């Protein structure tokens, strides 16, 4: 048990160091700008005095390492500075949008994870039949398609042809939960297609891998039904790779939302990030980029730790 705790601490420490280095990279990246933020924002017509005053306001007159510590300190306390585009506090811009993005991502996860596991088990059960090939081909093509292609196919099907879902997911602040869910169903479906494809393929591979082992053969010889073998013998033992796959795909989901949000004009963090990149609104880019990276890194860490917990082999091999 102590051994496991050490491994988890080690893995967590590695993630923390990664987050720290990434925050450093993000900070230095903005430092490298030709000229500085003050000049970029105020433009060429600004007098040296205004540039100087603005620089002091942004604390650009201090040395870089002092500013890095101050910036990180502010970030940890939720003060992200003001947007360069409209002067509003970044924290205020981000909080509502982060909630929207998390809502979309978690809705997708709730649909996609059970679906992927179910399809994966079915495909493993009926492997090498027509049904299995059908699922494999469909998922393979979903993997090769860009997200926006799937999105536009769904839009043309469900909102242009059948006219049952809106093609734009516009969320207002005081919308009821039900109508919110209705609005985001199409983007959630798009993301589900992309994520399910990966998860399902790996679930199938993991189960089939286990099916080749001796104890499964033993169970078969004992005359246990195949569905029972898959559910009770093969699935629990393939849980470790499956959990890992799910967590990795959830991490992917956090980033995958960016494009889908742009397609459906959904007011999430991804859209804010893309908008700010084209406006070069650096405080917003810094804050939202760092939030995305942290979510991604910690989900990947969760993937590793869960895989370690569910597979005794991984607990020992590293020491």
């Amino acid at each position: 048990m102590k051994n496991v705790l050490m491994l988890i601490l080690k893995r967590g420490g590695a993630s923390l160091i990664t987050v720290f280095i990434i925050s450093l990279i993000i900070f230095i990246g903005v430092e490298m700008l030709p000229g500085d933020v003050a000049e970029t924002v105020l433009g060429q017509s600004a007098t040296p005095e205004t540039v100087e005053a603005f620089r002091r306001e942004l604390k650009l007159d201090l040395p870089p390492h002092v500013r890095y510590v101050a910036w990180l300190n502010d970030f940890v306390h939720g003060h992200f500075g003001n947007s360069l585009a409209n002067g509003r506090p970044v924290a205020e811009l981000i909080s509502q949008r982060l909630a929207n993005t998390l809502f979309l991502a978690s809705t997708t996860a709730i649909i996609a994870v059970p679906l992927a596991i179910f399809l994966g088990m079915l495909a493993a059960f009926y492997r090498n039949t027509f049904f299995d090939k059908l699922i494999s081909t469909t998922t393979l093509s979903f993997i090769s398609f860009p997200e926006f292609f799937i999105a536009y196919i769904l839009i043309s099907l469900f909102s242009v042809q059948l006219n049952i879902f809106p093609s734009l997911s516009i969320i207002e602040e005081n919308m009821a939960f039900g109508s919110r869910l209705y609005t985001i169903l199409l983007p959630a479906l798009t993301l589900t297609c992309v994520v399910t494809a990966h998860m399902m393929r790996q679930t199938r591979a993991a189960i089939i891998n286990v099916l080749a082992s001796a104890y499964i053969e033993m169970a078969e010889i004992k005359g246990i039904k195949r569905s029972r073998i898959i559910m009770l013998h093969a699935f629990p033992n393939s849980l470790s790779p499956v959990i890992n796959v799910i967590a990795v795909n959830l991490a992917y989901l956090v980033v995958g939302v960016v494009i889908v949000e742009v397609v459906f004009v959904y007011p999430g963090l991804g859209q804010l990030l893309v908008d700010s990149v084209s406006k070069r609104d650096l405080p917003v880019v810094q804050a939202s980029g760092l939030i995305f990276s942290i979510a991604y890194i910690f989900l990947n860490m969760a993937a590793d730790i869960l895989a370690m917990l569910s597979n005794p082999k991984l607990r020992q091999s590293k020491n």
Partner: protein
Amino acid sequence: MLKLLKQSPLSARIGMGIVLLNCLVAVFAPLIAPFGETKVVGDVWESFSPQFYLGTDHIGRDLFTRMVYGARNTIALAFITTILSFLFGSLLGFIAAAKGGWTDQLLSRVIDILMAFPTLIFALMILSVLGSSIPTLIFTIAILDSTRVYRLSRAVAMDIEVMEFVEAARLRGEGLWWIISHEILPNALPPLIAEFGLRFCFVFLFIASLSFLGLGLQPPLADWGGMVRENAGAITFGIYIPLIPAGAIAFLTVGVNLVVDWFLHLSSGLHE
């Protein structure tokens, strides 16, 4: 080689057909396209007609012409980026494997950190600092993608590095470059070629996504991702124009994947 092609399964042949078609269109773009790349020739969003095979786009340019030039720009950009990514990635991977020790440790840790960062977010941040231009785009994506190439080529080179012929070369007193270019590279080529196809798909989709977000190739240059973005508004009027460039992207990716599948099958030794 010809015999191998004759034995190829149907799926691989379809894949090769798709790739070949796209390459031909890309190379002979000016000959195939009926109009100029950026020339406005008709009304907004005209439908299919003998004059405009695929209709016109959001400002009245011929969509077929844009598709043809788009093939050229998008594929060329992705191809150059993938080659650069392989140059960086495999060179560093081979050096790490051949030198070992702290060089390997340092390179691997740096790459680990780069890989822990979500690629799209990293690219967006770099583009926000440097602005989007073609060289920035190529270098950013090549460097981000080379981390994956590094991993593979290091692993492959590690296996080769312990072979007797490498040891023999070492004992002969050959230098690092000689060992990399004469011993490791020729033996690492087959897995790297299959990987090239996969990385090309990834880079191609990645550039298409960035262009779709408005941060890739800048207008008036035609590229497929950007064309989806420009014409996205049409879909709410029941005009399916954005599906054409998006479909072309999907079509080429599927084609490359089919060929790569066959390649992987061949090199894994699972004949019949």
